[in-house]
């Protein structure tokens, strides 16, 4: 599933979002490439004339995607925010405000794989500490917000990503990896390092958020009724 639409990291004070980024890591220019340009046309067509500023968030995502394509790091440099402002004829500060407000916009470079690890209560109860430890060990970083020396990983601690039913979980770029533990996390990161893309979703034997170990309900045929005339129920559930 896409992290864009669902990730609502409310109340999360990410250190990456406090200070204005230092200039040394900022590129000096940004231009939309052909692929982004095509996409911009599609996006802006959705808004009535004079309301183009509404497209600021989709355009910022576009920047992030283009940066990933071009540099391997999905982030939004300041010059790109200016480019968005120019394109939408809105004051640059209004773009800065949006870009710094939402944590899904990275305003400093991140690793090729941005690991957003949920540490909110359900995930934490189900062992997110192990996931964090495994990520730190494989990436070779000591704290969140740090990029691994090889530029592969950046760890970010996030609040609930809405996949608690498959806790603990983390988001890798746009994909959710769920039902993690220390080992599976390690395997996942090693695979990513090798350039593989392991299948997203639960990392244990489970279909999406269906019960572990197979179905526990709706075991009969479609339309079959149990003896009491009620729709079929599994004997274990009441």
């Amino acid at each position, binding site marked *: 599933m896409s992290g864009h639409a669902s990730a609502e990291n409310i*109340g999360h*004070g*990410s250190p990456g*979002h*406090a*200070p*204005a980024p230092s*200039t040394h890591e900022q590129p*000096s220019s940004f231009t939309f490439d052909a692929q982004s340009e095509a996409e911009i046309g599609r996006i802006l067509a959705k808004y009535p004339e004079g309301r183009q500023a509404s497209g600021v968030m989709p355009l910022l995502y576009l920047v992030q995607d283009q940066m990933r394509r071009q540099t391997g790091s999905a982030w939004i440099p*300041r010059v790109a925010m200016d480019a968005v402002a120019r394109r939408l004829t809105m*004051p*640059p*500060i*209004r773009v*800065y*405000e949006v870009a*710094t*407000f939402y944590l899904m916009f990275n305003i400093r470079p991140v690793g090729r794989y941005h690991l957003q690890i949920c540490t909110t209560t359900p995930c934490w109860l189900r062992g997110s500490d192990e996931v964090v430890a495994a990520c730190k060990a494989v990436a070779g970083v000591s704290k969140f917000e740090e990029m691994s020396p090889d530029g592969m990983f950046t760890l970010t601690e996030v609040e609930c990503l809405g996949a608690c039913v498959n806790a603990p979980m983390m988001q890798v770029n746009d994909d959710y990896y769920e039902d993690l533990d220390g080992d599976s996390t390690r395997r996942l990161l090693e695979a990513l390092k090798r350039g593989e893309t392991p299948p997203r979703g639960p990392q244990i034997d489970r279909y999406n958020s269906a019960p572990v170990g197979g179905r526990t309900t709706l075991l009969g045929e479609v339309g079959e009724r149990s003896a009491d005339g009620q729709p079929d129920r599994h004997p274990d559930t009441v």
Partner: protein
Amino acid sequence: MAKVTVDGIQVEVANGSSVLQACEAAGKEIPRFCYHERLSIAGNCRMCLVEIEKAPKPVASCGYPVMDGMVVRTDTEVVRRARRAVMEFLLINHPLDCPICDQGGQCDLQDQAFSYGSDHSRYAESKRAVQDKYLGPLIKTVMTRCIQCTRCVRFASEVAGVPELGATSRGENMEITTYVEKALTSELSGNMIDICPVGALTSKPNAFTARPWELNRTDTIDVLDATGTNIRACARGAEVLSIQPRTNDEVNEEWMSDKGRFSFDGLRRRRLDRPWLRVHGRLQPVSWQDAFVAIARRLEGVRGERIGAIAGDLCDAESMVALKDLMTALGSGNVDCRQDGAQYDTSRREFYTFNTGIAGIEEADALLLVGCNPRHESPVINARIRKRWLAGNFPVGVIASPGPDLTYGVELLGDRPSALTALIEGGAGFTEALKAAKRPMIVVGHAAIAREDGAAVLAAAWALASAVGALTPDWHGFNVLHHAASRVAALDLGFVPRPGSRSVAGMMSGGVDVLWLLGADEIGAGRIGPDTFVIYQGHHGDAGAARADVILPGAAYVEKPGTYVNTEGRVQIAFGAVFPPGEAREDWRILRAFSEVVGHTLPYDDLPAVRRRLAEVNPVFARQGLPRFGASDLSGPAGNPAALGNAAFGNAIHDYYQTNVISRASATMAECSRILVHPVVQAAE
């Protein structure tokens, strides 16, 4: 109208008013931080909580509309506790560093914590700290003190029209910043200091100089432009330490321009504080008596028509009437106030004033600017135009050379007089906009009239005003925007050459033998003939004093009582806040004293007598206030609209921060000019 009961008091307020406004109408004080009557409503501080009958919990009154029959309570235990709680929350992350804060003593947070807060805090954890921001040479920031009311952000985008400030990040990490650490490019930025309810934004030039309770406040009038901004000069001892606006809805609302506010350090630098006399080519200090005698000697045997006087841009009406009377006594009609050579028709006052009135802008429904850049010529008037523009349905046409962004949407109609002709002929679409408007306004600036065909431009603008229906018995849509504070008073006094006498240009290059410059520094002193004997009466050692043979030290505007007439023709009286430095004196007194030496004693000994003389010369000086008026006589100013030239209109002001002797002497203004007007292009990173 809605009937509202506030603490048992019945009031009627307009529908759509807020509960807070109703409470104010009932005479109840409601504490607030984010609410400001001239800004949009943000509702984010929660300090204005009140109880409303049938509402389950306290309501933020600033953003809550009244309803008929509403019953409001502002002084119940619930309200008091709510305010205490809000205060406690606001102070959690506030550094409480009042002893080292310049806002101390004039701080809303301090006052409201005292009046509505609790006497102690229960918060023992560490506070958040915020890095200070760079906002330019005028505003000092201590951002840890910020309570994020966003007044400054709203001011920048709404009133000033320069959306450069914002709130980045969120929650605990929210910060007020430009994000790119740049100087704000507004000519009104100082007002953010006034509206910031805490000490987060304070005045950089005033940092750590004075406590508000040490200052003596004197009501006076800003003369650094012709808006006639009502100001208060705050002085300690002999020094003016800060200047703040006073509220006057007719003129400046509660805003003032940065130049007026921050030029005060120029009042201490390059001052002329004693008389000087040029002896063998060098200026030497002399006594008043010797200076007067030297002038009197030089005047001996000089015929009246070989004597001239020029009044500068900062003069009070009193000194100009005295100088004019002196010149008349000496037999000279060579007096002029038009340093820039602007062409006026002084036969009727409406030909040279801003007749619509500043407040009248809000009633206009179309605007044409001709050779005029209000953003630099009067930032406060520009803010009024923007306010009107924000209200919608306000087409603005501009005939001028490209200048700074005026902060509102404009239609560029050309940069030279031909565009005006096109409008008159009706070819251009904007003529229709003006004609369709019920109350169109035309504003002529000095870039349009301070040129050879100035009279023609003025006449053409009048003709257009008359053609599009801007001149009716109850609407006067013809305006001249001045930027020299003394100009309208000078024109009212007839401080222009009589027919056959010499104008500024005529007095240059040896046109007169003796030239009296009353604070006139912007005439190109180099053009004065080498043999002309120059008397410079003024307060700053600038171009005029450098050329002078005799220097008579006068008083700057905050150092003397004076009468000023703003661009609208509004007569306003200023009081003196401090004494002039050293031996400098009030200007009309200098002229009065000198007149005695040459045996033409001016017939006034005290200020009331000079003011009586002003009213005698022109009755407008006796008038208080400025009633709105329409146009009754449609015949236009002299000038042949057919004589329009073809040169593009220039700019009346090239460097907003350096337009007169005071701002040129100010280190703060020089810094602004360096950073904002002449930015060094940074090498590409």
